Structures are given as C-alpha cells and as structure tokens.
C-alpha cells in the first residue's frame, strides 16, 4: 500500500504562465547581465591590449630617441656619419672613368690610388717621354673638365722612360 496523490484540482494556467513569465524575466535579466559583463570584460581587455601596445610604442620611441640622441652627440658617430656621407657622395666612378679614358699612346698607368675621405686621387704612370707625360695630364683634364688634375711629380727613370705622378684633389662634395 502506498499514499495516493489523487488531486482533481485543475492546474492553473495562470500559475503556469506566471511561472513561465517569471522564468523568462529571470533568464532575460541573467542574459542581459551576462552580456553586460561580457562587454565590460571585453572593454577592459581591449584597454589592456591598447595600453600594452601604447607602452610598447612609447618604449620603442624612447629607445629610438635615446639612440638618436646618443648618435648625434657621440663625436665618433658624427665622424663616421660624415665619412659615410663622403663615401656615398665621392664620384669614384667618374674618377675611374676619367682615368680609363685618358689613354695616350706611350703612357702606362702603373698605380691608381683613390682616397675618398680626403678627396684625393693619385695616378702613377710611366711614359716614353715627358711630352707623352704631359699629354696624359691634358687627357685627364679634358674629361671631365672640372677635375683639376695636377702633375705632382715627374722624373726620368732611364733614357726613354719617364715616371710621374698626377694627382687630383676634389673638394666640395
């Protein structure tokens, strides 16, 4: 034998609807609160990410600025920068082309020395005669005309051989 739950009372639809409505409201409030919490959390996270990025950028900028200042203040760096600038602007190809084009029969180039830092170029040669040596100087001066080659040294080595040195000092680059 067991207890009997017999109950003929009609289940109130009003009560069921109330419970459903209450459950819906509670669910909606919970969902709304959850959504707001999620948004808040996302915003906080976004702010954290932005702050970290800004901090990183600031750090990089600061480091870059420091490096720039150090480089600007350091005499060695200043010197190196100037040298680099000189090297980059020295017309080496033009000098070499001038030397190659100054071809004179009876003259032989024995050494070429170019110092970009000082803007000095030097060509050592041997020629069959002094006249040929001067022809070589003229040829060098002909192209390009703004290169002021100067015969710096010339000497007779033997009866038919002259040795000399022609130099060029470039300024203003």
């Amino acid at each position, binding site marked *: *034998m*067991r*207890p*009997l*739950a*017999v*109950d*003929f*009372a*009609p289940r*109130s639809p009003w009560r069921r609807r109330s419970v459903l409505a209450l459950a819906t409201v509670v669910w909606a409030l919970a969902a709304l609160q959850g959504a707001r919490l999620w948004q808040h959390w996302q915003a906080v996270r976004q702010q954290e990410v932005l702050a970290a990025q800004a901090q990183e950028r600031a750090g990089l900028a600061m480091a870059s600025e420091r490096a720039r200042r150090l480089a600007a203040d350091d005499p060695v760096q200043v010197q190196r920068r100037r040298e680099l600038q000189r090297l980059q602007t020295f017309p080496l190809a033009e000098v070499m082309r001038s030397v190659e084009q100054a071809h004179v029969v009876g003259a032989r180039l024995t050494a070429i020395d170019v110092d970009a830092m000082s803007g000095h170029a030097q060509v050592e040669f041997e020629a069959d005669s002094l006249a040929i040596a001067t022809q070589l100087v003229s040829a060098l001066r002909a192209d390009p005309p703004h290169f002021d080659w100067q015969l710096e040294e010339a000497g007779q080595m033997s009866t038919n051989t002259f040795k000399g040195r022609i130099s060029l000092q470039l300024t203003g680059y």
Partner: protein
Amino acid sequence: MWSVWPEPVDVYLGTRGVAVCRGSDVLHVAQPGSAEACRAELRRWAAHGRPPGLRWRVWLSGGLCQPWLVSVAQGVSSVAERALVARASLAGLGLAPDARLWIEPATLDQSAVAVALDPATANFADAWPRESGARLVSLRPWWAEALGHGLRRAARPDAVAVVDCDSVTWLAADGAGFSQAKAFTPLTEPAAIAQTIARQKLGMAAERPVVSTWTLRLDASAPRAGALHTGLPLVAFAEVAE
C-alpha cells in the same frame, strides 16, 4: 510550518455535511441532508462575508469521490486503454458515466486505484472558489489524505478504513500494491459502519490484520484531536481508532 503563503483554508464537502477550517480553527460546520444542500450551504457561507483566505483546499467525502480497484488486465497495453476500461466500469459501480477519473499508479504491471469524482461536484469545485474570489489549490478525497497519514504511522497497517460523513472507504494492501479499494456509501449509522469494517477485516487473508481507522466527525461535541494528529487537514474533526 512557516510558509511565505498564507495558510490555506480547508473546505470539506460531502453528501451529508460540510466544514470549513483554517488550521485548527473551525470556521463553519453544517450537516445538510444531500449533496445539493451541501453545495448550497457552502455557497451561502461564502456569500455571508468575505472568505477568510485566498487559497482553498477542498476535501471530498467518500460518497463524492469513490475509489475502486482496477486489476491488471490482459490485453491492456497502455494507460489510455486502462482508463477506458476503468470508465467502462463506472455504470456498473453506480457512478455517473461522465465522472472525472484518476488512476494511480500509472504503471500497468500492478493493480491500480481508480477514483471517480462526481461531475456535479467537479463543476461546483471549479466554479465556486472562483466566484468567491479564491483559488482552488487542491481537490482531493479526504480519505486519500487520511491514508497517507495512516501509512506514516510506526505500525504500518494492512488496511485503512476512513469514515466520513457519508461513507466508509476501505483500502487494503497485498504486498506492495493495493488488494482492495472500495467505498461503502451512503453509510452513516455507527452500527452499520462498525459491521462493515468488521466484515472487511474478516475478509482479509492475514489472521490478525492491522487496520487503521480514521473518523471524521462533524458534530460540535466531537473531541478536538488537533493536538494528537497534527498535520492532517480538518484535524479538529479527526480521530483514530485502531
């Protein structure tokens, strides 16, 4: 027990009497002579002043809400089929064919107790609380509540006899399930009630069956048994005689 809800009002309705209680307070008692008169009495009572509560529990007598046993039947394969079988037996039991039915338990592997609710009473219970501005929270036979209290006692009874204003309801066990469920109604004479219970006891298989008898008294001189049987609705009218 403390509750956020106000205490419900217990309304008893039978074919020979009505009662209204709130907890152990008896608000109204009357013993009209018919079911129609009982319903009219309750309507009259509700019309005279505001009802004392919004939640009403209506308890029905065995004469208005009769049980009977629905045995396990071959060929019945669903709860709906069993309900059809139970409804088919209404006329044979002298009950209205359009009575409301309740069958418990819902499983098909054991005998079930079918309960029929008188249609006029069902219509009254649906409409009357609403007309009175109250809400019907339960509509149960009082004998079912007494059965529950009887089964909670230390000495588990083999049978429970519930005597109310118009009937004796007899429920007996055979192992786990019910072996008998019937209401003898109308039955109001004390001698006839005692004979009926004695006859039912003799018909039981056990040599000395334990029978828990619960009696509902609607006369004002009935002893207040509330202190003895706390928790049973209409406790002011109930007493146990085992």
